[in-house]
């Protein structure tokens, strides 16, 4: 096969461009907390038709768990069965947080509520609106909770994919935001610990568990 000169020129340009792209970006290390900090993690996937709450997709639970575990936190996922009935009856985030705190045995509680609404068939894909509310609080001071709401678009390939697929497709986005919310929550409440690892980045040490009541 003999390629015309124009094809060779195009290939050469492509090779140059790829070489330019080889520079890689090193991801910033995540904040590390004292290993004794425990976090109770609860999830809800609210049904849009019925007044009931479904179990969040396992992929999301895993992604958020990883995001927090990377921060050296001890994550305890609250089993959905223990919350399903209460979550189904109540959709107010504050009251749900109280329900989580009541069954959790941890320093901090984090509630991740999701809801997926079908948007439309859009240029060959199935677009969903996924609304997520992240709430984090010290178990002993729920009134000082911090929350963040995300409105994300999930674009799925197939009609058979449902709400949980839409949420699962955004697991990385939600997990990253959960980690950052956690960091923000502890800003001002954390001290620069002497034991901070020296890897070239600022690393925070959460106050000992006994002090978390002052959060």
């Amino acid at each position, binding site marked *: 096969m003999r390629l015309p000169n*124009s*094809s060779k020129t*195009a290939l050469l340009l492509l090779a140059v461009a790829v070489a330019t792209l080889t520079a890689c970006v090193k991801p910033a290390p995540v904040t590390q907390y004292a290993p004794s900090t425990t976090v109770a993690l609860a999830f809800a996937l609210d049904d849009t038709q019925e007044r009931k709450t479904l179990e969040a997709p396992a992929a999301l639970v895993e992604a958020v768990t990883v995001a927090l575990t990377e921060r050296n936190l001890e994550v305890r996922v609250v089993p959905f069965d223990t919350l399903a009935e209460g979550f189904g009856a109540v959709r*107010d*985030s504050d009251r749900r947080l109280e329900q989580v705190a009541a069954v959790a045995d941890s320093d901090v509680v984090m509630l991740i509520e999701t809801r997926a609404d079908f*948007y*439309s068939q859009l240029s*060959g894909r199935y677009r969903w609106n996924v609304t997520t509310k992240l709430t984090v609080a010290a178990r002993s001071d729920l009134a000082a909770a911090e929350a963040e709401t995300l409105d994300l678009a999930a674009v799925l390939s197939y*009609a058979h994919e449902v709400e949980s697929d839409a949420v699962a497709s955004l697991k990385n986005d939600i997990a990253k935001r959960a980690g950052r919310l956690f960091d923000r929550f502890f800003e001002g409440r954390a001290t620069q610990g002497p034991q901070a690892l020296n890897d070239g980045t600022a690393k925070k040490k959460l106050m000992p568990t006994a002090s978390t009541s002052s959060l």
Partner: protein
Amino acid sequence: MGRTQVRSRRLLVMLLLLSLWPTSALAETNPDRFSAGGYFRAMARPDFDGGWSRLGLWNLYGRLLNEGPWAALELKLDALQQEPGTHDVWTSLHAKLEGGSVHGADVRNGSLENYSLSQLYVKAGNVLLEGVTWQMGTLHTYFGDLGLYDMRPSDLFYDTVGVSALYQNDTIDLLVGFGDSGYGKRGDQYSTILTAGGSLRVRLVDGLELGVGGEFFYEPEVQGNRFAPHRTPLPQNITYEDYVRHEIVARFLEQNPGREDEFPKPVPTSSSSYKLVGYLGFGKLGPLRWNNLFVNFGLRHPDNFYTETVAGRNYTLYTQALTDQRYELNVGNEMQLALVPELLDLVWAGVLGTRTDEDNKVSASEDNRFFYSLVVRGQLYLTETVHFLAETSYAHENSKQGNLWRGHYNSVFESQDGLANSEGLEFGDQDNRNTWQLKTGFVLNPTGYGVFARPSIRLLYGLQHSTMHNAFGNSFVETLDQFNEFRETSDRNWHSVISLEAEAWF
């Protein structure tokens, strides 16, 4: 500035104002009342071969590098938000603007003339019937698409404005619709085309579903409406060949000199057409994510009329009877495989189609074709966000009634059995066109793994070989005139482009 442009700008302003609509306060996970979604693809595609920045002629060879820019913006306003656990009425408004031009990326330079309000509808639930979603306005719907081709063989109600009702539960989706496709099909030659149809999708078990559907068009006879369907009775000794050459009147006057006023008058009639679709989807089996199989069979809606001018006098010829037997069948399949999760994904797709015009037995045309194509794409994940993509395709197209394409630079005059015939019933010197393409390069997907994960930034090289000469949009001067300063001197079967492009659903 034309009226259309003024209207388009007013609409844009209205839509922007809509985007400022206040959103709900959040004590729970309620979505905003207003939201916007969309799609775009834009690219810089240097073409060193004199082409128009597309590797091949159409997306039968895979959509990648064969499609131009596109942008779509869909806006949604929840006028009455759905309240879970209640049977209260809810309603949402949808508007979709889309078109195929971006400034600097194509010859039309992003002009808004290339954009249209392609969809506008209201959805409402719990009105009259519980659990039924009503849609009023445009009704376009489909079971799914062939992502590698950007084709939707199962689409229904593309041209229809009307009302539909959708009933859904865990097992079935049942849709029935009714409306008018007159403007969609006829434009400024509007004539009512009543449309009725529906679809049913059944989820037999998790990982297996079936779908069937269809739409039927009926254009009634209307006395006195020149845009309504008519047929012009063809005089004796007039053949289909005369119609192909648009010489019916000339032939009539040859046989009937001086009888211009006796040329047959059109007779009102009615027209009908239909489209049937089928769908089989299965997956969730080991490395098989999902497989979509689509089929459609249809009878195209008859054309309306055209004009012949003889001796300075215009004659309108109605062609309902000459275009009412154009059948088409299309089959398409796409399979998505995760061969090595988070390392290598593979998608393959194929389409097969045939077009038959029972009226036309004499000339080569797009309505008498057979084609098939296969596209295979592999995506290797170098990292979570940096991927290597390779795609290849092969397509065969056959004209069932003679030559339709040119194979050589000097075959300009070959139009009838290899001989020059400017009024011939064929074009070119080939009745087959075979096309092979290869596309490869790097993809940056910020959202991670997945062949169809978006947004996507791609740096690709594409190479095509076709048995057709100049099988891509181009600016060549295709004439053998001795005074042509840009005369071609050899066959051009290869074509390549390099492309830096971005694509996203949002």
